[in-house]
């Protein structure tokens, strides 16, 4: 969504972007002999390099000048390439990913709450708050917003548009790496993980509003809660279908998304 706002990039490899950093960490531990914390740092930096800088320079920049559709198709190809590369060069089987914290429970009344879940929520909230602060309260963040709203005018005002777009790609890479490190201990690291994650993320962004950060957050929460409530209290067989029904309903009745704003474009 950040990428779409600043550079009209629709990334259908976003799920694979979440899958890959976990394998960077595992590879750093297995082949580099690094300890988990160092490997985590190495994985994070590698994600910034490969999924941020190289993705922009090698895929987005050359393809975007031919229009959005060729870029979309390129990201689909990139998703397959990343998936098959992990399968070929690391493993086709799921891999255990070390937990960042002890898997203990906190008992609140009669409910047992996992410390793991609390840490995930805390990190997610902190990341969103930090991102909002960065975009809204810092000079660079405001320049990025200006770039997103009107790149031509931003350039006239002296904003280094290309650098701002690069920052967006780096932020995207940092966020997917964070997501990867948080969910891989639960879902296990596997080359196919991106298939599910990418679809859910895309649905969440459209439901919430493709042009608003808070829209994506609300969309993600809504899809996650509905998915789990349907599976727990109705039917686990239909859990995958319900978010898609929601997607269809939103596209039919509120195409800009629940919190998105309608955009007009010259065609």
């Amino acid at each position, binding site marked *: 969504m950040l990428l779409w706002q600043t550079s009209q990039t629709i990334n259908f490899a976003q799920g694979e972007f979440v899958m890959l950093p976990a394998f960077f960490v595992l590879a750093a531990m297995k082949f580099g002999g690094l300890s988990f914390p160092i490997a985590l740092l190495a994985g994070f930096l590698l994600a910034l390099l490969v999924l941020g800088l190289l993705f922009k320079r090698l895929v987005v920049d050359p393809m975007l000048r031919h229009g959005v559709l060729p870029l979309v198709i390129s990201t689909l190809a990139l998703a397959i390439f990343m998936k098959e590369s992990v399968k070929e060069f690391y493993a086709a089987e799921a891999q255990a990913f070390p937990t960042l914290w002890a898997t203990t429970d906190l008992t609140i009344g009669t409910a047992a709450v996992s410390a793991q879940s609390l840490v995930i929520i805390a990190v997610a909230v902190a990341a969103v708050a930090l991102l909002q602060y960065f975009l809204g309260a810092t000079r660079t963040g405001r320049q990025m917003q200006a770039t997103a709203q009107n790149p031509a005018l931003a350039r006239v005002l002296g904003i280094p548009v290309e650098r701002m777009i690069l920052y967006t790609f780096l932020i995207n890479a940092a966020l997917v790496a964070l997501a990867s490190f948080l969910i891989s201990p639960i879902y296990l690291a596997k080359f196919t993980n991106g298939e599910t994650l990418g679809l859910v993320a895309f649905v969440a962004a459209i439901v919430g509003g493709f042009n608003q950060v808070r829209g994506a957050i609300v969309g993600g929460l809504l899809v996650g809660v509905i998915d789990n409530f349907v599976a727990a209290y109705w039917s*686990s067989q239909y859990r995958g279908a319900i978010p898609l029904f929601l997607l269809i309903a939103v596209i039919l009745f509120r195409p800009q998304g629940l919190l998105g704003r309608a955009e007009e474009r010259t065609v």
Partner: protein
Amino acid sequence: MKSKWIGSVASGMLALCAASVQAQQTVNMPIVIELSGAGAVSGTNFRDGALLAIDEVNAKGGILGRRIVSPVTDTQSNPGISRAQVQKAIDSDPYVILGPVFSGSVKVNMVLAQQAEIPQFTGAEAADITQMGNDYIFRTSFGQQVSMPKMANFIRDGIRARSVAFLWVNNDFGKGGRDAFFKEMAARGIKVVADVSTESGQVDFAADVVKLKASNADAVFIYTNEEECARVLREARKQGVKVPLIGETTLIGQKVIDLAGEAANGAKGHVALTADAPIPAVLAFRDKFQKRFNYLPDHNGIKGYTAVYAVKYATEKIGKFDRKLLAKTMHGLTIKPEQEPGILMEATWDAKGDIDRISFLAEVVGGKQKVVQILPKLGK
């Protein structure tokens, strides 16, 4: 011009002779197996077990003097692809086909092997595979009709549960297991208070474990494939499930323990095969396997390994490479370790291709599978 023509014919004939000599010196045993997709853990173990046995047999001169050649193809855990791969294997004129492991794949491809009269040694466990009148299908592990009664007895006598919550994977393996499980529970008066269906390859089990917890069952029975088992164990640990988590071979195999980490501790159940069985031959196999592939095998490794030795023993018994005669010989055959050490444990195949041998009750303690009891062969 004439001499050129004669030269071409001569070199062609030489090539044909060379190919013929090579074919005579080898026996083709293709492995059609899950190397990616949901069955990758099972398939990789099966393949590696088979390759280990093949290398051992070849090092000792092969079968009846012929080296085994064993091309490996990936079904991607997809029944349609598995059917195409089995057809491709059949086109290469194999002596036997090894694999696949996934029941759904075996159900759609075993007909091809049957029509071509090629014996197929599978790791699949769905009960109905050997009930379809196919004389060319042979199991390398128990079918569900054998394992579920043993499991049910364990739930009644070992766990002493009066109610149980059942989580299963919605594929042929899971459906077959569910039918057999419900039948055995009803026969023992144990109530199934939750019936939770999950998908093959599913990654998020939060809602499913909520259902299991809400059922207030005395025990939870988990019947999915290996990777999903590990995810369920992790989620159950995360949600603080306190009742016993029990399952079949797929729940407490070493690969699942590796993936689930400390969340696997305390899981228990009945295992048809285990590389941790307190049997010297099995432990020696485990060590050889680990040394060669750098990971501990699970039950599927034993399936692949023993399948090759079963073919070797039966072929040497009949004294020639005859596919129809091999299939006929396998029915009713008992192989003892003293006759063929590679079989690891005494095994008997019945008229339908089902296997019978000893099995185990086991528990995960400190990240390792610990066998607590050995159950005798059904036929004893």
